[in-house]
């Protein structure tokens, strides 16, 4: 499993070269290929006309697609959120009225926003640390670790909709397995119907899938940690906990950022599970469900739905920017 062992590293042969190039940027390039490198760097002369046509076409299509499918609509969402539109008639500019209505007059908004934050907190504070714990335990090289890995990863490949349906089998009031195990058939708990309870059950189902995902990422990160670091710490008399928190965990910083971004994104994108369970009603409201309801439903309030989407966008943007800053930093180091 070469890929697992050197995540981000490709075939093993370029590895030894990489640190040298990183320590002295440009030095390696300057040595042999100075003239060629400078020629490659400068000007369009290095491409023939045919090259330019190939690049223009094959780079142009994905860039255009990205603009039309992702960035154009994002911009349009922001603009539409200041308008009132039903998708057919005239578009009229209403300024901040959609936001005003959203925050003050739309009863579903605050519960939904709260649920999204709860989702984030639960994944971030429960599922993610749990995934890290499992990764650390499996990484110690216990026997059967392959079995444990496969089992714990399994939910990751399941569609969230399927997770939602399976949750119903376990949690339904009258026939669900959980009530049968608990033996409270006389006064069964309606795990998914009770407004105060169901969000927690759904969070557990979401965590079931998220834990494995986090574990995969951390396990790869842990495998890439230089074992001599741990040995050095052990010789210096550090306990295992100290070694982990002071030595290993800080070196996992890039993985931590990725896991953080994924956790936030998952929490904001959460949709499929609640939609599969009860279309996101009755205690399972989420911002994503509100957006979908406002465009697909009979109301078709495009402007208003866009305002909710912009709230989601602003939520996510902070984290996305953090991630990009780390990426750019990594980029300049190369």
């Amino acid at each position, binding site marked *: 499993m070469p890929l697992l062992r050197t995540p981000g590293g490709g075939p093993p042969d370029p590895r030894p070269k990489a640190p040298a190039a990183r320590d002295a940027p440009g030095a390696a390039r300057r040595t042999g290929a100075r003239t060629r490198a400078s020629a490659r760097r400068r000007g369009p002369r290095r491409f023939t006309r045919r090259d330019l046509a190939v690049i223009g076409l094959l780079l142009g299509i*994905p860039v255009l697609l990205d603009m039309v499918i*992702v960035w154009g609509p994002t911009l349009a969402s922001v603009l539409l959120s200041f308008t009132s539109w039903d998708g057919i008639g005239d578009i009229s500019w209403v300024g901040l009225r959609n936001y005003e209505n959203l925050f003050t007059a739309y009863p579903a908004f605050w519960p939904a926003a709260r649920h999204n934050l709860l989702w984030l907190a639960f994944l971030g504070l429960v599922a993610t640390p749990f995934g890290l714990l499992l990764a650390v335990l499996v990484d110690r090289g216990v026997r059967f670790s392959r079995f444990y890995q496969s089992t714990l990863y399994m939910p990751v490949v399941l569609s969230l909709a399927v997770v939602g349906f*399976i949750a119903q089998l376990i949690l339904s009031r009258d026939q669900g397995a959980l009530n049968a195990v608990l033996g409270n058939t006389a006064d069964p708990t309606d795990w998914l119907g009770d407004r105060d309870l169901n969000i927690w059950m759904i969070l557990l189902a979401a965590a079931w899938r998220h834990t494995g995902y986090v574990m995969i990422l951390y396990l*790869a990160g842990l495998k890439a940690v230089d074992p001599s670091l741990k040995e050095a710490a052990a010789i210096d008399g550090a306990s295992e906990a100290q070694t982990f928190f002071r030595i290993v965990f800080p070196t996992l910083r890039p993985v931590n950022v990725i896991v953080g971004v994924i956790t936030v994104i998952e929490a904001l994108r959460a949709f499929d599970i609640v939609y599969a369970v009860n279309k996101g009603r009755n205690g399972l409201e989420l911002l994503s469900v509100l957006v979908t309801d406002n465009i697909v439903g009979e109301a078709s309030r495009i402007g208003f739905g866009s305002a909710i989407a912009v709230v989601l966008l602003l939520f996510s943007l902070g984290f996305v920017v953090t991630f990009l800053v780390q990426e750019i930093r990594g980029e300049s180091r190369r």
Partner: protein
Amino acid sequence: MTAAAPASGAAEPAPPRRRRGHRIRTGRIGVHAFLLTVSLAFLAPLLLAVYASLRPYEETSEHGYFSLPRKLSFDYYQRAFSDSEMTKYFINTLLIAVPGVLITLFFASFTAFCVARLRVRGSLLLLMLFTAGNLLPQQVIVTPLYVLFNRIPLPYWMSDSMTMFDSYWAVLSVQIGFQIGFCVFVLANYMRTLPQEILEAAIVDGAGVWTQYLRITLPLCRPALAALGTLQFTWMYNDFLWALVFISDGDKLPVTSALNNLRGQFFTDYNLLAAGSVIVALPTLIVFLLLQRHFIAGLTLGAGKG
């Protein structure tokens, strides 16, 4: 501790190691017990779904899902395939996922090649654009796309709804546009680790950009492409939202979204739904078990870089 300690450097850490060895053994049992419990807890929901799908509704409605079986059969699987035409929905899914994965990988690999190998002007900006685009919540772009697709006319042979809305083209293009971002990010990181000398040698030999991409770079990226292909197939297969929003004709739904159809208007046979869930989950589980290495590599390639 021992008097001989100063004699050799290795003797000093020896005693703690022995003590730790003992602790590790008791610790190991604890770790195994913990991991085994968690693993079984993770497996239980899946096993329960399989179990429920094998039992008739009358039985589970009377005794609950957590009871001993009296009659086991594959009736529900047969019903799921005959009554609800799962085959049709599977074909719908494949019509979206297979071209989706191939086109995504093709364009993403060329973009990554331009960014990481040719270093065209504005590479960093391009990379950021693609990466950030993939991180946005889908709901941010869903509304304008819904409006847009409703306004793009398509000839009848492409879409019987005469618009891009309610056709595979809508779902396919969104899948590709959205997933290219992730693939560009992963592939660009991967291509950077390839030795630049190979490319330089090809340039000296007079290879054009297309040859450099197809003959020199792509073959070296085979592991990354396999990993991404596996991962992307699973993701596109599992998609629920795009089809739900962009397809209104129930017959065109992909299999994941079609699961909802197994639910009756007034009465839901959960055992049938369980069978449907198992059928839907099965291909991804098989892909995972057979290509686990690639699947995991796909996820970690994007994440674990120094």
